[in-house]
């Protein structure tokens, strides 16, 4: 029982990341009809926002104190981060919470980047075939990740989780089930965070006038245009929003997986599979499929399962995708008329 619960937890946090990326992909596809292969790069860009923020906050002033010497006999260097010098305890706190705090940096950066990307590049590809869209965004993904590699190097850069959440949560004790069920705090935080973001996106689309117009536009953009609404402008904002969602998913994932320049590509392939399984153009489907595939993957990596079918953990997601694509042409929750062939 414990083992099963643990696997579900394991799957949920990975599923959270898949769901967040897939949500953005579907949002872009449903509104603009564009297949964005650079979406994984946006996830990676978000992760590097966290890295940059951490670096900024750790900028130090170095004062050489000639009265004291180190063990080697050279004058002692006293390093104090500027933030702590200026802000005192709050600075130290900010330093500790640099990963969640970097959301302040990530949101505007990703929003601007997303809008610039849509206005500058994607706009010209609405009328081109899907193959061209895939190719140009694939090229863009290469460019983004190479630029990141140039500035940050090729090695993974581990980011610390805040002190308070870096330990292990004894989930079993909380649920009254004994000591064995233990789980890293930060992953639980990530899971909750992904719920919050997904909820916020859905609330935005469901309960605001702006979101209502966007949904109407997804359904029939021509009619919305006839009503005198500049739907294109709203879709641009939605693209920015999708970039922000991917970026936030990346920021919060950094303590779990040290970011490097090609993490985006790895997640991209999986999240495309997630989108297709959930059904092209279905937001709920993307989220559901994200969590579902995450859980399936973690169950497949249990030793008991691997003993029966060796190697299943490596291919389960793709296998499920193949089966679903062949049996349910629209995916699990796909809408009629969206990308059917």
């Amino acid at each position, binding site marked *: 029982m414990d083992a099963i619960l643990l696997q579900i937890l394991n799957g949920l946090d990975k599923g959270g990341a898949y769901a967040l990326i897939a949500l953005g992909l579907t949002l872009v596809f449903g509104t603009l009809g564009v297949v964005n292969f650079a979406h994984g790069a946006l996830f990676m860009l978000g992760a590097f926002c966290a890295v940059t923020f951490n670096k900024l906050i750790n900028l130090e002033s170095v004062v050489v104190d000639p009265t004291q010497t180190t063990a080697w006999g050279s004058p002692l260097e006293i390093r104090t981060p500027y933030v702590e010098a200026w802000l005192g305890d709050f600075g130290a706190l900010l330093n500790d919470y640099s990963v969640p705090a970097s959301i302040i940096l990530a949101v505007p950066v990703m929003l601007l980047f997303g809008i610039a990307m849509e206005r500058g590049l994607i706009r010209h590809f609405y009328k081109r075939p899907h193959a061209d869209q895939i190719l140009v965004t694939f090229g863009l993904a290469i460019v983004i990740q190479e630029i990141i590699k140039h500035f940050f190097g090729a090695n993974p850069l581990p980011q610390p989780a805040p002190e308070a959440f870096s330990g292990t949560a004894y989930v079993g004790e909380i649920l009254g089930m004994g000591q064995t069920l233990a789980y890293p705090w930060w992953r639980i935080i990530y899971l909750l965070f992904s719920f919050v973001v997904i909820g916020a996106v859905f609330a935005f689309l469901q309960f605001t006038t702006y979101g209502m117009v966007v949904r109407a536009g997804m359904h029939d953009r021509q009619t919305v245009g006839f009503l005198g609404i500049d739907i294109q402008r709203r879709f641009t904002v939605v693209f920015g929003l999708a970039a922000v969602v991917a970026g936030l998913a990346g920021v919060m994932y950094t303590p779990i997986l040290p970011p490097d320049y090609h993490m985006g590509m790895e997640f991209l392939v999986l999240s495309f599979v997630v989108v297709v399984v959930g059904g092209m153009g279905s937001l709920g489907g993307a989220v559901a499929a994200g969590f579902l595939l995450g859980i399936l993957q973690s169950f497949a990596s249990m030793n008991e399962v691997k003993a029966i079918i060796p190697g299943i953990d490596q*291919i389960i997601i793709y296998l499920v995708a193949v089966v679903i694509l062949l049996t349910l042409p629209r995916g699990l929750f796909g809408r009629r008329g969206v990308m059917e062939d």
Partner: protein
Amino acid sequence: MFAGLARNDWFLFLGFSAVILLLPILLQPIGAAYPALMQKICIFGLFAIGFNILFGLTGYLSFGHAAFLGVGSYAALWSFKLFTMNIIPAMLMSIFFTAIFAVAIGYVCLKRSGIYFSILTLAFAQMCYNLAYSVLTPLTNGETGLQLTLRDPRWIDALFHAPGAGLPRATLFGISTSGGGLAGFYLCAAALIIGFFISMRIFRSPFGLMLRAIKSNQNRMRYTGFNTRPYLLAAFVISGVYAGLAGSLMAATDPLAGAERMQWTASGEVVLMTILGGVGTLVGPVIGAAIIKYFENIFSSFGEATLHGVFGFLPDVIEEPVVWFFSLFVGDGWHLTLGVVFMLIVIFLPGGIMEGLRRIWKLFDRRPGDRETIPAAQTQAAE
């Protein structure tokens, strides 16, 4: 005017063969005439030609072709290990196994089209790659990669002579093809020329016409009572076998096979080559492969010192930023150059380099009254 199509094709074929066979002389002035690079150009040219038969003719964008390359390499290497170091059986083994693979994968993937086809091929390729790294380690030797060892049985070779002291080399009836000699290059060149000839025949045949018809309007083909599936499958298998053959040539010139050959970024690379050269053209993919492999070599070896040498004539104030800017694009940053060039091509010149050449040709070859016909010649977008 009177020159028929077939005659033009013969000229094209002879010209192509001449250029490929004379590569060691032609590449001398630009310092690229060493066998390792020319082999790569030929092998990837063959790979891209095969990919182009599927993508160029039918418009089905496969993101999993590298899987066939990997399967071909492994099959060839196992033939080296088990039977003989002669490359002919190795190539036959590769063709056989990739054909089986391609039939199985193609049968499943071709049930869908468009982006779903791309995702399905991607999924299969990733499955192959992941399995090669994990469970299939006895077959693929996992991360280390499959290599020749002294303990390999090599049954057929063992019948004729006792094993030598060192590792044997891959041979073609006694001529050593691995180890970086010109023999290896001419083997690849011969394979490329044969592959080019077959692809030309396919392009000009009724079968090729059928594939183009599927690209321009598959529904209409179906309405006329035409089953398109067998044609698509045939195209898929042919292009898969090309990839497998390219893989076996890789093994023949350098007997080593690793799973990273099967990763989807490797599939992406062949897409880049084909697009860069020109989709749906005969020589375009080879040009794309040659350019990418050549510049990969040149750009990766550039460092900041070379750049300072190039821009040394500028005053220091200007030189520093210029060198900094260009250092983004050379050395490790070679992929950045590739990405930028690729994006520019897709945005401004979807027909690739061949399209560019055609436009330039049009500028010089303008006859009165020709200008009106130019817009009609634009390529149709594939749906």
